[in-house]
């Protein structure tokens, strides 16, 4: 591989309120790879994802983006990364269209049409319905619609499949596969068994503190 990995972590450790959660965690994420973070509840999966998304700062260790220390390139990194957490990050009082209207300028990239994105996640015809009338699964789909709109190369998705029905999961798997093939990379956590090829795994139990 001539080009440096999209994301490389060296010896990441995290402690919350002086109690260590995990330590010594290192991995590299190359283009075209999908990394599934596995581990029991409370093993720090969400914490790791929030560290990768720069929402949390690790107690120790360093992270490299395209070979550069993340510390100096936070803004470019965030420009090229999309993080979807447990909460959808969608305002219930607004309609899906209005929600995407304020979420898109945060990552201003060549984007596709909002209607196409909402149709792709199965919300066709519901673009102008207030989100508080939508179900939890539909709310998450509004957040997932951002994946169709953004050109960020690194996606960090926390439990993207929860509350999504069968065909929604199928579509999402295809989307992740295409993204990887186009040279992007994905980090996900899920308790289901995603049918994805070149899926690599990272088990938190190896880094947990005994």
């Amino acid at each position, binding site marked *: 591989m001539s*080009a440096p990995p999209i994301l490389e972590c060296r010896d990441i450790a995290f402690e919350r309120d002086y109690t260590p959660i995990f330590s010594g965690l290192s991995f590299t994420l190359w*283009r075209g790879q999908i990394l599934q973070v596995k581990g029991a509840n409370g093993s720090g999966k969400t914490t790791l994802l929030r560290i990768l*998304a*720069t*929402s*949390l*700062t690790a107690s120790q260790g360093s992270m490299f*983006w*395209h070979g*550069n220390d993340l510390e100096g*390139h936070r*803004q*470019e990194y*965030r*420009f*090229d*990364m999309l*993080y979807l*957490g*447990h*909460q*959808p*990050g*969608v*305002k*219930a*009082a*607004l309609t899906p269209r*209005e929600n995407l*209207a*304020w*979420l*898109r*300028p*945060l*990552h*201003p*990239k060549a984007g596709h049409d909002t209607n196409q994105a909402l149709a792709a996640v199965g919300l066709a015809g519901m673009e102008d319905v*207030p989100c508080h009338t939508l179900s939890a699964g539909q709310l998450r789909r509004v957040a997932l619609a951002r994946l169709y709109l953004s*050109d960020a*190369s690194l996606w960090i998705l926390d439990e993207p499949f929860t509350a999504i029905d069968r065909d929604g999961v199928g579509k999402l798997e295809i989307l992740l596969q295409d993204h990887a093939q*186009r*040279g*992007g990379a994905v980090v996900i956590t899920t308790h289901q068994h995603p049918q994805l090829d070149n899926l690599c795994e990272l088990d938190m139990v190896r880094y947990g503190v005994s």
Partner: protein
Amino acid sequence: MASPDAAPPELATATAFRAVLTRDLTLAFRHRGDMANPLIFFVMVATLVPLGVTPESGQLALLAPGMIWVMALLASLLSAETLFLADHRDGSLEQLALSPQPLWLLVLAKIIVHWLVTGLPLTLLSPLLGVMLSLPQAGFGPLVVSLLLGTAALSMIGAIGAALTVAIPRGGLLLSLIVMPLYMPVLIFGASAVQLAVDGISPSGALAILGALLAFSCLISPFATAGALRVSLHG
């Protein structure tokens, strides 16, 4: 796919600022009822003074400048909590913090909307309170001008407290505790501007300092609030 050596990404920060501004305005419009709460509180507290102190207009006139300002301060304090709470609960605050856009600018947009929705209506309503508390005629002009500047400064300072207590359950009372001392200079110059005008002295000096306080808080507050939000999200 961008990589660091590509030209620095064109961030369109202005569009992001406008997007957050319109988002919050539409949200405020969707919850129109909530906009009335600080105003109702403002007028209700005004009726406490005659009930509690004296209905006699001569004495009320002495109290009016200071009391109206105290009530405006309390009303804006009550509404400061709503600034980030809803965004924190549904995760949109984290999305704002993780965007490449400068967080202090997005926070500035939110503070401006918060002022438009609470501070400005309070200012426009204050002459009504002036009448209720028999404020002398000379005081009305300076009252509106001082509240115009003052409520903006209060929204700015209140944002810091709101950001610090957003992750704390039932953080509302704590918000008032940590923000009240920072409100005092604004109250001092705001209320004395009206008092000076009532006493026939030109209030321009006090209003000028009030403007300086607003400028100072505009300079400090967005950055302090952005820093405080990142701390709260870390918690």
